[in-house]
């Protein structure tokens, strides 16, 4: 009886390890969030700046948040503007179809002009 339990337990361990290996083989981590850049890291009031997220992977989605101000458009390239002087943090989270995701922040300083 103990022999069968040991055999069953061994099979379970092998299956679990095998599944993990198979997952790695079938889903190579081609997903990479390369960079988050802006055309201007300092802008004046009411000026617009482009922000671009560069990433590789399949079926990518780009989610954008900002502490203040407004983000226009969607996808990998957006525009940002705000009507008062401050420093704003913009966060982009890129996700792929396999569930991988990564976030990057960028700060934009808004001058008084």
């Amino acid at each position, binding site marked *: 009886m103990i022999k069968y339990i040991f055999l069953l337990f061994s099979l379970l361990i092998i299956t679990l390890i095998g599944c993990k290996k198979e997952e790695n083989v079938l889903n190579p981590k081609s997903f990479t969030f390369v960079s988050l850049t802006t055309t201007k890291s300092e802008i004046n*009031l*009411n000026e617009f700046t482009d922000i671009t997220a560069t990433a590789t992977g399949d079926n990518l*989605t*780009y*989610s*954008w*948040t*900002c*502490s*203040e*101000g*407004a*983000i*226009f*458009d*969607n996808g990998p390239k*957006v525009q940002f*503007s*705000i*009507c*008062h*002087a*401050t*420093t704003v*943090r913009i966060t982009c989270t890129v996700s792929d179809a396999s569930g991988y995701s990564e976030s990057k922040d960028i700060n934009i300083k808004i001058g008084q002009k």
Partner: protein
Amino acid sequence: MKYLVVFLFFIISSSIVSAQCCSVGSPIGGTTSIGTLPENNIRYTVFYRNGYGDRYYSGTDIVNDTSIQVKYALSNYVGLFIDYGLVERLTLGFEFGYFINKLQDWGSKGSFEASGLSSGIIVGKYNLLKDIESEYELTVSAGLKIPFSTDRIQKNFVDLPRDVQPSPGAFGFVTQLFFHKGFSNISTNLFLVNRIEINGSNSNDYEYKYGNCYNTSIFVTKKIVDNLTGIVQLRNEIKDKDREDIGEIQSSGSNLFFISPQLNYSFGDFSVSVLYDIPIYRYYNVRQLGGKYSFALNFIWQMDLSGE
């Protein structure tokens, strides 16, 4: 007079989710007939408020800057308040708010708009002093403000601006003091209401914390004819600066004074009020969009459930 049949329209227009850079003030807290209810009485209040602003202020001055991208902002809001007289001196209140819309127009770039539930408040009101002969009443209340959502609304995976978000996204605490003195020989009443809202921060949103609000109103009511009462309210609204995890938002916080004339018509268990806000002094930190006009309608239905 078993209880006050004049319902005060006390609305906090610079409360949370309120004017910082680019939105007009939005009512969140607020209640009518702020004193306690008789035992086993229930009162339903529905109110609607519209606000619009298209002019920027810096300090007390109007900003003339044609490059400003936000052309105007508006909001339409409905609130439901339910008050229940639990025992003679204690009333429980529930407040709910819903933005029909909050809109921010960026001219040729388009506009942002959102709608949704704002926040709820559970409040207990306790009557400390009441003297029917001398016609005065002192009631204090305290409550918890609960956001209906801590996540910002997005469109196509992009955050809509904070100024159009319906929910403050954070818990808070509310205290209120209500004092009434009646002068029945001249059909006049005097009220003093002070309300403080302490706002928490939202860990899902850059630890954003809306500034605390301190609102004080003095009301004078005068019976015009039977069932019709005129009310004049002088209101001061002070709002602290907002904060986020990297510091204070300089372009937030204000000190405003309003005169708000109000008409109140009562018939049976119902009452209808209309109010219009007239700003008489404004001071905005740095630069913010100020409200141009604001008006509100209020419907109240009060019932005695005791069967007496």
